[in-house]
């Protein structure tokens, strides 16, 4: 990729747009708009830019359903919505999954529909930071907003995550590089530490890299806790790390003024799952006896945290909530998506703003072969290959305004920069239509 000339041919700039990609929700993007198209975007990282400058070839623009040969063909909105509503209204165990890449406004009718038909509602947390939520429920959650790190932190630790790949502006906008109130020199006033088996792109930038061995995360953190509590380590090497390095690191962590620990799916996806997070949280709690430490999970989608917040305030539980008994029930491993699919329990699968085709293990996706799948999304993706009804939504944060919650739970109103394609409909509208149609079918059958 060589040098590209800056884009100068545009009608207007829409300032302070919020990026609809990762949980960093950068809200300083400037979209350059010409003829109702975003022709360039300023301040975004490679990920954000690629999403906003979308691939229009694969944009879902019309509702589609399968014909008798199993091919997706264009149908009228009425036809598609009625067919979807019919499937939902007549199902016994509907499962509504996704929601992390749409707005809170679209979740509201979604929850209403869930309550009406007694469905299970779940989001991507179920396959990413679900174990984090469980750990939080075990041991607590010492958090902060990202500006606290920017203004105060002199030590920043990343583990089980690689922000330079997954949250590219995290270091530059929030944690490591920016100049803060008490950290006037920015990067020079901070120690950046990465604990990761791999020499990841983030490790390459770090002052200290601790390459503990694969699946060694629990043991390593446990050793730090032991040292912190004044215990002597009895082995020379723990989780692949020489003990003197562990002593040295512990001392450094104790002697910072303000430390922040960020962790990602590297901790939640390995075998120890929530226990990894348990111990990481307890480490931070222990460190607070000596100095100030906080932590934050690196949330992936721009509104994955939003869904957990939304469900918590509406119904008291964060994700995987089952309404089949007329009241909300939350049982990890029972009312959660992968488990419902593994057990072949769901009989209709509505997926909105998510891509299980790309992100669920095939063993779970196999059940989608046997049941009808309704997809609400903006691009033709792997899930479309499994979908029976496809409803084209609009792009939150570019074509439609809406509310989202950043990884640190800061709420943001995402503005719109351009109008959506004429044949597409907002997620909120689609879900509300489904709700109204299901209501009608239910009333008629009374």
């Amino acid at each position, binding site marked *: 990729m060589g040098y590209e000339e800056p884009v100068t041919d545009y009608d207007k700039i829409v300032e302070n747009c919020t990026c609809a*990609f990762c949980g960093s929700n950068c809200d300083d993007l400037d979209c350059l708009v010409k003829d109702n198209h975003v022709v360039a975007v300023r301040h975004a990282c490679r*990920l954000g830019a690629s999403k906003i400058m*979308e691939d229009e070839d*694969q944009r879902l623009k019309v509702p589609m359903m399968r014909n008798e040969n199993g091919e997706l063909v264009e149908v009228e909105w009425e036809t598609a919505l009625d067919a979807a509503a019919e499937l939902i209204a007549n199902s016994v165990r509907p499962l509504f999954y996704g929601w992390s890449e749409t707005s809170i406004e679209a979740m509201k009718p979604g929850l209403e529909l869930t309550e009406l038909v007694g469905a299970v509602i779940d989001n991507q947390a179920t396959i990413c930071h679900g*174990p984090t939520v469980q750990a939080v429920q075990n041991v607590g959650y010492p958090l902060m907003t990202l500006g606290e790190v920017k203004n105060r932190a002199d030590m920043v630790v990343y583990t089980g995550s690689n922000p330079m790949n997954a949250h590219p502006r995290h270091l530059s906008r929030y944690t490591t590089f920016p100049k803060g109130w008490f950290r006037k020199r920015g990067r020079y006033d901070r120690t950046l530490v990465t604990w990761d088996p791999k020499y990841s792109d983030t490790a390459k930038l770090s002052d200290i890299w601790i390459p503990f061995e*694969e*699946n060694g995360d629990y043991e390593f953190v446990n050793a730090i806790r032991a040292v912190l509590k004044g215990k002597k380590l009895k082995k020379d090497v723990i989780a692949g790390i020489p003990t003197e390095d562990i002593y040295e690191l512990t001392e450094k962590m104790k002697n910072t003024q303000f430390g922040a620990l960020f962790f990602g799916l590297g901790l939640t996806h390995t075998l120890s799952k929530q226990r990894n997070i348990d111990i990481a949280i307890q480490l931070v709690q222990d460190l607070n006896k000596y100095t100030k430490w906080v932590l934050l999970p690196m949330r992936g989608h721009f509104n994955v945290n939003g869904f957990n917040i939304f469900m918590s305030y509406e119904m008291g539980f964060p994700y995987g909530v089952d309404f089949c008994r007329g009241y909300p029930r939350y049982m990890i*491993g029972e009312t959660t998506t992968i*488990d419902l699919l593994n057990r072949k329990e769901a009989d209709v699968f509505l997926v909105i703003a998510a891509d299980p085709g*790309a992100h669920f293990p095939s063993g779970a996706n196999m059940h989608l072969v046997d049941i009808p799948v309704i997809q609400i999304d903006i691009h033709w993706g792997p899930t479309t290959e499994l979908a029976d009804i496809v409803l084209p939504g609009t792009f939150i944060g570019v074509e439609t305004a809406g509310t989202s919650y950043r990884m640190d739970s800061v709420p943001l109103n995402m503005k719109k920069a351009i109008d959506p394609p004429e044949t597409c409909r907002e997620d909120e509208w689609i879900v509300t239509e489904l709700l109204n149609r299901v209501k009608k079918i239910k009333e008629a059958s009374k």
Partner: protein
Amino acid sequence: MTYIDKPSISNVIKFDELNVAKVDQLKVMLNTGTDIYQGACKKRGSTLKDEYRKVAGVAYMDPKDMAKLGVGNWDSVLVKSDWGAVVVYSAHSRDAPHEGMIFIPKGPWANVIVSNETYCCSDPTYKGIEATVEKSDKEVLLMADLMKEVYQKYTKKVKEVD
């Protein structure tokens, strides 16, 4: 601008020059997850294209491991685990050295070989999976073809008609 043919990979070591014992099958630990190329391509929506196959249908390996197998960048390898088998490209990892470990970015290819077991924790096991890698002469499938082959959701019905 954000479009790419394939991720930029440095050719770290010429495998034929290296003094390593050749093996037919390599035992490895498989990790999956996101990387920036996969993320950009997926969220842009270019999943039907060759680019997606190049960014997600690829196993990033330690150059030494590749030398042992006798494969180079963008050769096909077959990765097998207890949950399935899939053909992906091999490529030198940017994060090497990490002998005995391979990384496949999340996507339909990785899904075939990761575990759907949640151990009652809601979350499947995407990382730290035992797998084997061997040379393959098969072509890596494009996303749509892979989905058809793996799931056969609509092809089955056609067969029944026949």
